[in-house]
């Protein structure tokens, strides 16, 4: 503080006190103020020399460079610095359109008729290559099929069971507790049947792909001829929504490919919408119950919050507003 004042100000203060104080002793004491201030300013000189020293400059530079190097080591890139990429934007795939799914809203359940149709599409089209090994037949019961229908569908598939009393494995018709059969016995067989590409399991595919249901729908309906200048290898198919543009899966959905039992026209987009709804259900079977619980939770907890604020104010209001009045006892011993 002292060093910030100009020394003239101190002189003025000293002379002002000298005027008002007749005592010589006290005036000389105040005069020594000036000498005290000179000592304080010497410490600011030390600070300035510290700031101006080469060592400070070098260590600050070293600290900065080290921080940047450490950041680059941790995160690989530096912020605010443009990077050169060897890849093209199309390698990320075309961003899918946000489609108005019937189950998009906060209060919207799945369209279960669509799930049922989507299961039909999956069974007749997708299941030739893609497994769905996290869904059991019993999962369809009460969602898209009756228990009898699911049981009949399960019994059409032979499952290996055993061992029986003779220690042999045997084949038996499927039960509700069995999981969906896979098209290939193992990954190698799947790759061998698809020119080296592995058809992914579809149980969680909607959750596993960036863009979710929109992406799957766009991919299924987005097969086009490759634009000029794009070379697609033999056996690959061009799809702008697929990262990289070329994938092994060919377009599979064509108008009229399946025949819906509820009479819905089986257009390409209708089938794509239905199968994506089905796959979305497969990835999130808890979806309907989750949203219903969410409604309850939001209502309950927001009401509880308001009530707790009321109760807090009710309990604390008298405490915060009270005034304490103290009447000291009368002095009886006074004389």
């Amino acid at each position, binding site marked *: 503080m002292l060093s910030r004042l100009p020394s003239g100000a101190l002189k003025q203060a000293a002379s002002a006190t000298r005027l008002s104080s007749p005592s010589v002793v006290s005036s000389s004491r105040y005069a020594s103020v000036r000498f005290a201030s000179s000592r304080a300013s010497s410490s600011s000189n030390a600070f300035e020399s510290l700031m101006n020293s080469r060592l400070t400059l070098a260590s600050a530079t070293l600290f900065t460079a080290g921080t940047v190097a450490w950041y680059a080591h941790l995160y690989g890139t530096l912020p605010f610095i443009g990077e050169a990429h060897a890849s093209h934007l199309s390698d990320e795939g075309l961003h899918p359109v946000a489609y108005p799914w019937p189950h998009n809203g906060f209060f919207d*359940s799945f369209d*279960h008729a669509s799930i049922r149709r989507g299961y039909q599409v999956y069974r007749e089209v997708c299941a030739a290559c893609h497994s769905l090994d996290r869904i059991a037949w019993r999962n369809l019961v009460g969602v898209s*099929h009756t228990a009898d229908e699911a049981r009949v569908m399960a019994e059409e598939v032979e499952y290996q069971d055993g061992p029986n009393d003779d220690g042999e494995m045997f084949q038996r018709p499927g039960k509700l507790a069995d999981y969906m059969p896979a098209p290939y016995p193992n990954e190698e067989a799947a790759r061998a049947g698809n020119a080296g590409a592995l058809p992914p399991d579809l149980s969680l595919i909607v959750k596993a792909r960036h863009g979710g249901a929109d992406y799957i729908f766009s991919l299924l309906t987005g097969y086009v001829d490759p634009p000029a200048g794009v070379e697609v290898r033999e056996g690959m198919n061009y799809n702008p929504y697929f990262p990289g543009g070329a994938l092994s899966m060919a377009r599979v959905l064509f108008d009229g490919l399946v025949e819906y039992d509820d009479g819905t026209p089986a257009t390409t987009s209708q089938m794509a919408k239905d199968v994506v709804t089905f796959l979305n259900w497969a990835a999130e079977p808890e979806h309907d119950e989750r949203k219903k619980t969410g409604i309850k939770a939001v209502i309950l907890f927001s009401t509880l919050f308001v009530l707790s604020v009321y109760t807090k104010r009710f309990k604390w209001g008298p405490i915060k507003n009270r005034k304490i009045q103290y009447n000291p006892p009368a002095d009886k011993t006074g004389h």
Partner: protein
Amino acid sequence: MSFAITAYNTIFKRNSVYVGSVFAAAFAFGIGFDSGVTAFWDSWNRGRQWKDIRHKYVQDEE
């Protein structure tokens, strides 16, 4: 006003009655709230849920 006095005298006055009615009301509220939300959910999602389309696929039972 008389309602307030009646409510106080019947429910709030004794803590045992108060707490008991709170738990009873919680029980009733749980059931009522569940059915209310379910009713809203079903009306909002009319025609989309499985129970709305189930009758089409169920073979005549018994």
